[in-house]
């Protein structure tokens, strides 16, 4: 089953007089539970593709289907709800709420979904953090966590709502090589354990070994698809 189906997606940024074509006829399918690495140099359009797949940006042309819904037809309100319920994001820079503990940062997702932060939600947040190796850190503020720990909290937040698709934008770029590898390992395990599809953006070829398949992007064009391993 296809979780993400992007067809002939084009994205043109208007900046001043010049038009920048960030994505050109990008077609990409991601299957249920599949991990795809999106590899490309800086400025090649990786973030743009991820933003369109996650409903953060509207495509200029083309069709974007997520879980069978055509999100290219959605308005702002529908996109907000779509993002809340169907996708998880892990950003390049750590973007936790600074005044909330690790556990509360996960519960934000529950609150945005209208949840009461009840026992069930709390238990789920704790269990997720436990899985991510942060069982002893649930009550710490982001400022009291290391970079790797913060990124793991962000992963927990992305997974909290059981999304079908999780989008990672250079999740390890702020970490050193060893920590980066650990986090990638963790991401792979978590995705596989949940049968959740993921796109992991990177410009580091070594990170592609954690993916099922690698898609290269150069100048907004998706290149040959090479299976990993």
């Amino acid at each position: 089953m296809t979780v993400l189906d992007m067809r002939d997606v084009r994205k043109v940024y208007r900046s001043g007089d010049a038009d920048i074509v960030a994505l050109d006829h990008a077609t990409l399918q991601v299957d249920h539970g599949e991990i795809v690495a999106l590899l490309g140099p800086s400025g090649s359009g990786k973030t743009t593709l991820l933003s369109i797949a996650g409903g953060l940006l509207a495509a200029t042309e083309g069709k974007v289907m997520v879980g069978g819904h055509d999100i290219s037809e959605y308005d702002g309100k529908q996109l907000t709800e779509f993002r809340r319920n169907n996708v998880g994001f892990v950003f390049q820079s750590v973007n936790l709420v600074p005044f909330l503990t690790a556990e509360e940062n996960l519960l934000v997702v529950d609150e945005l979904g209208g949840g009461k932060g009840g026992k069930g939600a709390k238990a789920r947040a704790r269990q997720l953090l436990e899985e991510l190796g942060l069982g002893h850190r649930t009550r710490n503020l982001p400022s009291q966590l290391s970079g790797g720990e913060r990124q793991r909290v962000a992963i927990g937040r992305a997974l909290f709502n059981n999304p079908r698709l999780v989008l990672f934008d250079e999740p390890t770029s702020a970490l050193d090589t060893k920590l980066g590898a650990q986090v990638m390992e963790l991401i792979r395990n978590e995705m596989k354990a949940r049968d959740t599809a993921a796109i992991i953006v990177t410009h580091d070829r070594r990170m592609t070994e954690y993916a099922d398949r690698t898609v290269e992007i150069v100048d907004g064009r998706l290149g040959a698809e090479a299976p990993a391993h």
Partner: protein
Amino acid sequence: MRLPRLPFRELRRQPSRFVVATVVLAFLATLLLFLGGLLDGLYLGSTGAIRAQRSDAIVFSSSARDSFLRSRITPELRAEIEAAEGVGEVGGLGFVLLGAQVPGETELADVAVAGYEVPPAGVPTPGPDGQGVADSRLEDQGVQVGDTILVGPAETPITITGFVDDTAYLQQGTVWVNLATWRAVQNANRPDSAVADGVVQALVVTRDAATTLSGPLPELIDTTTDGATKTLTVEDAVLALPGVKQQGDTFDQIIYSTLVVVLAVVALFFSLLTIERMGLYGVLKAIGASTRRLFAGVLLQAVIVATIAFVVGSLLALAAAAALPAKVPLQLTPGRFLFTYAGLLVAAVLGSAISLRRVTRVDPASAIGGAG
């Protein structure tokens, strides 16, 4: 929508961010209560004797320009008014402002000797000559029940038989006496504006409940007297007292200007806070927070900050009121607290609403854009 937890948590965990705004608003709340309290004190202290009238209208002579001191109603005019359509109970009223010697006190007390027939609220029916009931503000000036005060340069004696609350007249403690005593005091101390027997300054008129009126009572009376009288409702008579309307207008202007300052403080503070939070709002929008929810958080915080500022400001105002000498006519009424809180809330809501545009314009894609 459920109350969001995020804005509460931010207030609790990062209170230092909100301290400055809260302190500034608390001082403004104190200022508002203080100004309002002074206005109320001036108003209540000026108008008590008239507000206490339980009648429907007060009749002045037409030449008086609504002033008791200039007004004279003769027995003949009174008879005409009593015969007018819809007029029920009628009573004479007269005031004279004088200093009074109080036994055991060196300073003169400010009194308003008021002659009356129909008892105002809280005042008993008129007593015998030379006796009177005093407004309780004279208690603060050393007057006690049983004291005989000597009124004016003629030192006319009046024996105080009791006290009554909230009947002051033009910041002076009223002494309620029968009409004959009032005339005696007036004629002994103000011989230049003496009043003849049967003459009063004004009449209080109660509408006769049994008749249906063909028009407003004041008009009916003034038509009957062929323009010899000018009749006001009690509320209008209160506003016609010297200074009352002017004071009210002036203070109201200062109070509303202060509320505009409150609005500006809230607007500035929450705009700055919103600018600081743009990054966070981007992330929250990216993970599915609506503009509505984020803005509700801003509003909620503004309301909480305004509420805390109001509580602190109220305590400050109460402490200041307790420390002030009794002469300052500051009166903090429950109504004034309510008005001030409502004013702060409205200013907080309007002030924070300025941030709505900014919150709306936060692009969820900004969360993911580059190193953010």
